[in-house]
């Protein structure tokens, strides 16, 4: 069993959904990323989704775009992220899924990327602009290296594509809760429950839902339907706001970083409380799985 599968199993034993915390690597530097990873792990996050900054992310709203801009301005690179990944693995047992645009992977060389990511301690790979029908080589390379591959579906994805994306996914399957880009705007999609039910019919791995989850109440609603709750922009925005405010208040860099980590930890706890407050669905899910 991969570390990602184990993380979902552990959450299931706790009769709750998993929290997947997204962080933008190197925003504003890697020391912050390490501090935030520790914070979300301490709050109970089950998986960390680490975003590799890209100059032109198409699926991201202003919050994550700004985070990537800050990270790139600090000189972040894939190589530096790989160098620092073991430090994140050191402070937490939480498995790390790397989220990246395709071009940095292409530039690095997909095979080397998968091997080096695994060697650095990553557990999975998620490339939103690589559709499953184009991913056969990359899946092979990732699986050979020992990385899970996560694919996505969106509200208007056809049944046929949904089934193909689910079948290509190992570790977990990512459902986008609504149309649009990442961020709080629009909240969690109205069709979320129906979307999860649709995916359940064809999906054999845990189903996680992201886009629009910002507060404990959102997490609770998602957790009542899905196996995993993905939260990104809420952490990214909070960390950057608290950090900036502390810096403007003339706090030292490390004090500002600690304040940001503390705020993110509290946010992660709020989300975990939301998840724990969800009506237990483990038994129901089990029944459904057996039936299908």
């Amino acid at each position, binding site marked *: 069993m991969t570390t990602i599968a184990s993380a979902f199993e552990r959450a299931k034993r706790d009769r709750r959904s998993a929290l997947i915390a997204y962080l933008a690597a190197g925003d504003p530097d890697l020391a912050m990323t390490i501090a935030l990873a520790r914070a979300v792990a301490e709050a109970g996050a089950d998986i960390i989704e680490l975003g590799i900054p890209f100059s032109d992310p198409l699926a991201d709203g202003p919050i994550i775009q700004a985070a990537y801009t800050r990270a790139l301005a600090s000189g972040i690179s894939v190589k530096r992220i790989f160098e620092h990944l073991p430090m994140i693995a050191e402070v937490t047992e939480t498995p790390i899924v790397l989220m990246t645009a395709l071009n940095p992977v292409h530039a690095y060389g997909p095979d080397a990327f998968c091997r080096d990511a695994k060697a650095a301690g990553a557990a999975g790979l998620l490339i939103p602009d690589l559709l499953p029908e184009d991913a056969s080589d990359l899946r092979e390379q990732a699986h050979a290296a020992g990385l899970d591959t996560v694919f996505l579906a*969106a509200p208007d994805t056809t049944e046929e594509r949904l089934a193909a994306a689910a079948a290509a996914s190992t570790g977990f399957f990512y459902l986008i809760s609504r149309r649009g880009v990442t961020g709080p705007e629009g909240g969690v999609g109205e069709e979320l429950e129906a979307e999860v039910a649709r995916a359940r019919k064809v999906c054999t791995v845990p189903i996680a839902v992201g886009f629009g989850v910002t507060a404990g109440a959102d997490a609770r609603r998602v957790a009542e339907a899905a196996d995993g709750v993905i939260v990104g922009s809420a952490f990214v925005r909070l960390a950057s706001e608290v950090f900036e405010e502390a810096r403007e208040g003339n706090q030292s860099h490390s004090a500002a970083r600690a304040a940001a980590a503390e705020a993110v930890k509290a946010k992660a706890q709020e989300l975990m409380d939301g998840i724990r407050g969800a009506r237990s669905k483990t038994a129901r899910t089990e029944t459904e799985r057996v039936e299908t």
Partner: protein
Amino acid sequence: MMMKTATTPGRFGEFGGRYVPETLVPALDELEAAFDRLWNDDDFRAELDMLLLDYVGRPTPLYHASRFSERCGGATVYLKREDLAHTGSHKLNNALGQALLARALGKTRLIAETGAGQHGVATATAAALLGLPCQVYMGRTDMKRQRLNLIRMELLGAEVIPVDSGAKTLKDATSQAIRDWMGSYRDTHYVIGSCVGPHPYPLMVRTFQSVIGVEARRQILEQHGELPDGLVACVGGGSNAIGLFHPFIDDDIPMVGVEAAGAGLASGRHSASLVGGRAGVLHGSYSFLLQDDDGQVAPTHSIAAGLDYPGVGPEHAWLQATGRARYVSVTDDEASAAYSALAKTEGIIPALESSHALAYAMSWGRELGPDGVLLVNLSGRGDKDVVRDDDDG
């Protein structure tokens, strides 16, 4: 490489395809199906043809520029006068086609990106004609250096949305338009202005722009009696070039795309994606792009806002790879010299974008000498470039 086994549609060799978030796939499928159906629909084609004739003013002339030819080593230079098309460039050929397509799909809003503003103006024009609201994303830098087109778009009833991310130019406007469409595709059509983006855009834009080459081929045969020794067109994303080239693809004549070398290739401040870039993925397709070693899209520079783009249409990447077309680059200074030369010899003020093609014609013409015959796409007029902020980058 991973692109060899790719199966998304819309390939030019290994280039093209669809590298987009899953959210956009249903929108692209819908567009592809509509385009396939309507391009073969007599009523749709009749309406488009009538508008191209009565509204756009096609066919545009093929003009023998005899005084400019003297500056080109005496070679005979014909100009395909897209600058005389309504709105002042070739962009309306595509914007109008896509706007009709959008209306047939029941879309009630148009969005577009623009660099020089020519595509923004064309989309705003098509939107006004069809009574559709229109929003155009434009980088803040380009809003300053192409102010005339900003005013035109607003006069046409479009809303121009400033883009402040990245270098605040065409690349950033394109990214922002795609993000808008991620959430709006159910009621909105995204009118991409060049032969870039995910399938079906490169194919669709080429199809709408091929009217340039179809006319030019007929005209050169009528006026000159035989095909020219070469075709020349500027290449940013590459829509005017692919529109000219495609109908000549089976003819045995050289085709040259001219990219923007900006301050010079060696300076690193340029926009020559094919000449100076590497294969990669930007804005939904696999093509050539300017990028750093880490796969981050590189900053670009060109005096011509419409060429100031790090990517290029995937079909051009393929034409370069197969050798069917050749790609060269021309600096800001060379383009500026050609801009003045055409104005003074012919009384035609070309767009700075098109001036890159003219500059290459001047040097290619000198190589060919008086027996040479070149057909240059004069893709747009230069009124927008008359007043310019010389410290724009």
